[in-house]
């Protein structure tokens, strides 16, 4: 992007309402220098269940008072709360965002697709979700990729939860009625992402090379059938034919990337077949950094846990995330809030490790982290049983994105107060910064907030 001097100063004026200048300036300098040009914009969404307690992620010494005013503070002026300390090295390139709401996206313990689509859609997707839209705007061989420790198995949208195959955790969707599957098996994810260039026992390069035979064969077969049917029904087959062509296009890209894939593929260790919950989650983060560094995808969604998950590693062998949400004391005697701290700390550490790995990779004048925004959020707002009048976010990295997120603590006025904003505003801001379609608002509006002006991106964050 070419940032003119005028734009540049305009940005400063807008952002100067709080004393947040230093890191922000650096972020804007990056734009001005065109550093982010030519590099893909990447996103990692880390979606946790059972809510994120705003008080628990708020930096120390911040008083939200009567919560009627916008708070825009410098993170470096405050100590991060204990569970976030692993992010200390990234204080100048992260944002803690509070005070947004998403009250109208209900659901049982989760807003499901609503959390990222801003539509009330606890059951089936009503619209495309933010991650899938960003995948479309920032193309790569894999438009989106998702990891989930478990979910409803494919073919069983409603029923038992499984963990060794592709699953639907009901979080992401390409569009209405088009849910995005996540991979629950680390080993299978490895094969999907890196198999095209590696000799693996299952799948692997040999099979990848046979794919063009397969696609040719299926195309001929489908065309044969298409000749026999009416134009209306042919449309259905056209969708199928298109699928072959886009897989072929992806495969062509993967062929070009073979060397890079081989170089960056992580080592396939026993951790990939581990059944220990925390091992599995950290493997997902390993795969995430490797896939991003290789350039296989630009948008990854990680379902960090789910209500039935049991963090046995931390001694919660018989206490699930759901039990903890319901104030059950864990097997090893931790109270709910303490156990929630342990879980959050683990998840934030994974994010910190990922950020560090990306920061170690130079990109232009900066690092890969500058072009990668890691967004930690809950699938249901502020609590286990939430009212979603608060929906906190932690944003790490992405200094090179056209958003003023560096080094900030930003809290919007409470639900219903003048100046209050929604997660729809926030997502709209992200989308517009990624050349998404200009829209007044992303998703469904909250009727309870009809007196507020909720149009356009968040002025405090947009550049």
């Amino acid at each position, binding site marked *: 992007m070419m940032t003119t001097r005028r734009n540049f100063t305009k940005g400063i004026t807008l952002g100067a309402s709080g004393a947040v200048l230093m890191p922000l300036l650096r972020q804007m300098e990056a734009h001005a220098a065109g550093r982010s040009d030519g590099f893909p914009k990447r996103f990692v969404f880390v979606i946790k269940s059972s809510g994120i307690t705003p008080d628990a992620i708020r930096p120390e010494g911040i008083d939200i008072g009567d919560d009627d005013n916008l708070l825009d503070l410098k993170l470096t002026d405050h100590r991060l709360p204990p569970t976030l300390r692993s992010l200390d090295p990234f204080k100048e390139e992260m944002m803690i965002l509070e005070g947004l709401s998403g009250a109208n996206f209900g659901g049982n313990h989760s807003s499901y697709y609503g959390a990222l689509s801003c539509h009330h859609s606890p059951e089936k997707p009503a619209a495309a979700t933010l991650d899938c839209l960003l995948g479309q705007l920032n193309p790569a061989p894999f438009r989106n990729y998702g990891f989930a420790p478990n979910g409803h198995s494919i073919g069983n949208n409603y029923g038992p939860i499984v963990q060794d195959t592709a699953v*639907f955790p009901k979080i992401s969707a390409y569009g209405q009625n088009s849910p995005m599957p996540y991979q629950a098996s680390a080993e*299978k994810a490895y094969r999907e992402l890196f198999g095209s260039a590696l000799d693996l026992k299952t799948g692997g390069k*040999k099979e990848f090379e046979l794919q063009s035979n397969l696609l040719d064969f*299926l195309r001929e*077969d*489908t065309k044969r059938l298409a000749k026999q049917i009416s134009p209306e*029904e042919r449309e259905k087959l056209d969708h199928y034919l298109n699928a072959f062509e886009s897989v072929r296009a992806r495969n062509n890209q993967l062929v070009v990337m073979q060397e890079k894939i081989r170089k960056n593929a992580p080592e396939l260790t026993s951790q990939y077949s581990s059944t220990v919950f925390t091992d599995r989650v950290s493997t997902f983060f390993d795969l995430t950094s490797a896939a991003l560094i290789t350039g296989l995808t630009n948008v990854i969604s990680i379902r960090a846990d789910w209500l039935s998950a049991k963090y046995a590693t931390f001694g919660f062998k018989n206490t699930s995330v759901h039990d903890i949400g319901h104030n059950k004391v864990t097997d090893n005697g931790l109270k709910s809030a303490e156990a929630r701290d342990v879980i959050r700390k683990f998840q934030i550490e994974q994010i910190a490790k990922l950020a560090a790995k990306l920061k170690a990779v130079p990109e232009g004048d900066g690092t890969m982290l500058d072009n990668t925004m890691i967004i930690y959020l809950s699938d249901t707002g502020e609590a286990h049983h939430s009212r979603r009048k608060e929906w906190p976010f932690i944003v790490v990295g992405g200094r090179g994105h056209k958003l003023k997120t560096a080094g900030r603590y930003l809290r919007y006025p409470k639900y219903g107060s003048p100046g209050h904003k929604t997660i729809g505003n926030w997502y709209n801001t992200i989308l517009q910064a990624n050349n998404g379609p200009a829209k007044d608002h992303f998703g469904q509006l909250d009727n309870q907030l009809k007196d507020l002006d909720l149009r356009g991106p968040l002025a405090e964050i947009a550049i």
Partner: protein
Amino acid sequence: MTGHSTIIPTILIAALLGTGKADAADDDYFKQGIVPFLEANCIDCHDDETQKGKVSLDTIGGDFTNGDTVALWERVLEQLEIGTMPPEKKPQPSAAEREEIVRWIKEGLTLAGKGFELESRMLLPEFGNRVSHELLFDGSISTPPFTPARLWRMSPHIYGGKRYQQIVRGGIEAQPVSYKSKSSGLRDYADQEIMDESGFLALQLALSDIIANQIHDRELAPMTYGPDKGKPIHIAGKESFKVISEAEGQPPREALERVIREEFERACGRPITEDEFPKYFAFMERNLAEGGNAAGLKTTLLGIYLSSEAVYRLELGRGSTDEHGRRLLSPQEIAFALSYALTDSPPSANSIIQKAYEEGKLSNKTEVEKVVRAMIAAGAPPIRKHFPASAFHRMIQEGEHGFAYYPRIVRFFEEFFLYPRAEGTFKDSPGPGMGGRALIGAPQGHIAAIVNEDTHVFEELLTSPRFNNSRTQLLKMVDERHVKKLKSHPKEKADAWRADMIKKSNKLTDDIFRAGMLHDLSWLITHSTNDANDPVHRGIWVRTHLLAGNVPALPIGVDAKIPEDHDKTLRQRFEVTKVDECWKCHKHFEPLGMPFESFTDRGWVRTGMYYNKKQKRFETMLTPDKIKSGLEKSELVEYPFDTSGKITGTGEAGIDGPVKDANDLVHRLAKSTRVRQSIIRHCFRYWMGRNEMLSDSETLIAAEKAYLDSGGKFSELLVSLLTSDSFLYRK
């Protein structure tokens, strides 16, 4: 005023035959055909002065190029289609008049570029009731029925029948495909499911896993518990695959041939033809040569399993064409259609169908009827699903062998009543475990028993006392079973079993209030929230499923939330819906849902409403002795509870009107003609895989007649539907 009543029938018939001449762009037609309708039915309330609901139709023109006009006509269409306007108390236009203006508005909206939207939403199951109920059943339509020629994506269950699914941890079968459609309602619609990129990738991924698991033997990590603890689990690969994947050098030609023939038949449900075979063989040879035996075999299998005929059912109408331009399904298409109407397996797995097909006896209606009757007579073995089930439920599930256990019949009632969703309805309030999965076993067994008894099936489903969770009923069953067991088991064993069952029965209450499926725990829990009864969704279910009614879509911007005050009764919390702007919609369903206040949100029969002062909530599962002691200790406060409601919209004397409680409600509904017809419409949709069109009128009337003439036999209804023109003809 007089013009329209004479014009309409002619135009209507023309429209039904697809030769409608009335053009929305035609101003004369607007003046002569539409204005009189508006004057007679709308303007009283919606002129410039009265503007009820802030809608004025005084100056609405027929100009569909004007955005405001289009938006207004869209609102009019919605009201006409769902039947909320004119209001009940006002004189109503005839069904034909209503249909004609609906057709005219749709034509106009199509000119305005909204045709695709209108057409595609009418394909959704939830829009099925928008087709005029009156016209479907009044016999005024004589257009010969047909179904559009179609490709129909194989359902996840058909994949189950192909035995593709992989068994994942915990013994769960993961089918390689899923429905995309809404999970609350009839799901397997030919128009709704397509194979696109995401479907292709998901299926390819799942099949790759499944094949990888089958081409070699494999060892799984040992169990960590049980008698085989620590021993590795050996799972054998498929022999026919291993001959190829594990061959040193080139595998024998017969092995390749065998796999192609067997797997093609498995995937497509028919033998490969000699024309097709060489293409597949060449594909296999090329893959083996280029990728080696294992990878080559896998790719070949993917080609077979992903071919278009393996992912789509073909119903093109390859038989003869009749004088109406309709094409009969070919015998092979009929074989598939019948097989998938009752089971999830291809015809080759159904001996009756296969035999008829091989003998060339599937080429006309009489022959089809013979096969359907034979299938019904043969029945299907009982199935047990959703383990674990309680002893009681298990016994109900292990009912007599009969046609009700055909998987597609079981599933119709699952999708109609939605009872399996009870297992996913999360109840937060403490109390004895609900046994979520066990919950579903009993209704499945009761429904199957009613269908197998095959007399007054709908009435029984709605009112049968067998849905009472009764200890007495269980003990009666135990005694009957005990007598049987004595014949096949040693006496001590049979007696021990009886003693055990009696012990287990102690946990059961002895209800007598319940009548029919809507009083079953599973239906009640499915239609409830985490911690409360849900009169809205219960009422909507009754309105749409039993009364063929429509519920207006929740207007954009309306925040339909009932306050969650835990110290108020449900009725008190629902006071908010009584304001005009809410009640105009809520009146269509809330009075149908409120009678279920006869039950607590856990589905227990309510004997009183008790508020726990200490816990600050209403109790849902108190045994009589706990109620007694709670009241004595003043820990509980007793509130009155109100189970009254109202049935509207059947237009039938003795049905419409106030109801006193849930029992009164279901007994009244069971007597209604409209309820019977509504269930038949849902059966039609399920077995045709689409919404009804007006041209299906003949099929629906015949189906109802078959049901009535036989004294309420579900089997006769099925025979009628599966031999109908709607089922057998394509156009």
